[in-house]
């Protein structure tokens, strides 16, 4: 893997930093957030339905 020397000493780039893995994690984050958003929407509609 890629190695870099930085002012705080050498820093190793791992599998974790690989761009493909990052993209996979990004998609997971996105789905999690989308589900949260949909749940909030449904919860507020339901609160209206149950409230009346």
């Amino acid at each position, binding site marked *: 893997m890629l190695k870099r020397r930085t002012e705080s000493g050498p820093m190793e780039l791992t599998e974790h930093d690989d761009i493909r893995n990052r993209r996979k994690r990004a998609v997971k984050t*996105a789905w999690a957030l989308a589900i949260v958003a949909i749940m909030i929407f449904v919860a507020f509609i339901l609160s209206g339905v149950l409230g009346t």
Partner: protein
Amino acid sequence: MSIESHDIAHDDHHDHKPSGFLDRWLYTTNHKDIGTLYLVFSLLMFFIGGSMAMVIRAELFMPGLQLVEPEFFNQMTTMHALIMVFGAVMPAWVGFANWMIPMMIGAPDMALPRMNNWSFWILPFAFTMLLSTLFMDSGGPAAGWTLYPPLSLQGGQSFAFVVFAVHMMGISSIMGSINVIATILNMRAPGMTLLKMPLFVWTWLITAFLLIAVMPVLAGAVTMLLTDHFFGTSFFNAAGGGDPVMFQHIFWFFGHPEVYIMILPAFGVVSEIIPTFSRKPLFGYTAMVYATASIAFLSFIVWAHHMFTVGMPLTGELFFMYATMLIAVPTGVKVFNWVSTMWQGSMTFETPMLFAIGFVVLFTIGGLSGLMLAMAAADLQYHDTYFVVAHFHYVLVPGSVFALMAGAYYWLPKWTGHMYSEKWGKIHFWVSAISVNILFFPQHYLGLAGMPRRIPDYSTQFADFNMISSIGGFIFGASQLIFVGVIVHCVYKSRQVATGRVWEGAKGLEWTLSSPPPYHSFNTPPVIDSTTIAHVEEAH
């Protein structure tokens, strides 16, 4: 200095932009092009919303109705707010996020480029739909941007278009926010820890969480309005057992975080600009991050201060009053930190710095009148008067909009590779800063003297200040044409080439790139070291 020990073969094609017009703009997945689209779109909306404000100020120039019928006046106030909030200010900040976040955290692009394209291209359709209602038989929405039922339910068939337009804007904002969060959490260059991120990135991260939390709430509220209007439900209809006040609670549960959505990125931009032109690190970086987070948290528990007159129980009123007063603490920390950043600096006053200082002063005036409005007993007088209009325009116009302009002048040389005209930038600032006060300051007087908001005509005792305010409005409106002139000149005509760093005191990863930056910013993650980034974790 740090050196990369392994050289990486650069992508030969990394600076090739798509050649066709449609390929470049319609199908684009590039964060910079999408950022540009957002910014151009929001500028267009700023002028459409602004021309509605000119209609409003022209009608209010003198007592008596001279230009428009009251119904159309109400459509103008409603549309002005919807366009400015959802069409101008919010997309402008998303535009800044698109352009700057990948460059600031050392990423090649946004995490989800295709969704990025989609979240922008929904907007033109949403606003075409919203604006088209003005040409329909039943006219545009006229119940205020707050869409309070039962009044909003009296609108005709065009109301369905308004609701769907709001849905589309909401979807666009949510997708934009998901992208921002996914990018910031996953795409930072190795070594760019959260507490090394520029403050603009921090404020946007928090803003994006606010958006995801509250845009679905707005979507739910307008959906219930839609079914009340067209499908005979009674969510908010008292006659059918519904509760019109419940809508106000839901709306402001969205609405109060919404106003912070418009101001938090402004805090971020100002926190980038003031250190640059003071040639001094931002004072109290960590405190700024925590202050932003506390403001975001508090925004969820203060909503009913918009509703002190609906007849809440006394304990409820007291709770919302105290919670609202608390916001003054983190907001105060921010203002003190900006002043301390300037303190003992070596300041110069280029246009971005002028707008940033204008922001600090005038936003603080709006913040202080906000503290006054928090006093529930006094708010029973202030509520729904021009005092409120003055207050929120101070925080939104010389607040949020000035920060947008500061950011535009600050990064324009980076984006285009050319310097803008400093002389015209300064003229733009001074004319705007003086006229915006002539426009909004007298509105404090009008409100205290008893003029309600959202009225097309007024008693003659309010005539003088309305005329002064209108004159300020016309000058402010016209002076924004200077802004367009400066941008057009900078993009197409300016011969003065910008360096990569652009500003002497500028720090941060975006300034390590050329001006204009390569089409894909950091194909190789940059090395993070204290000489290039603006903030280094504080040694305690």
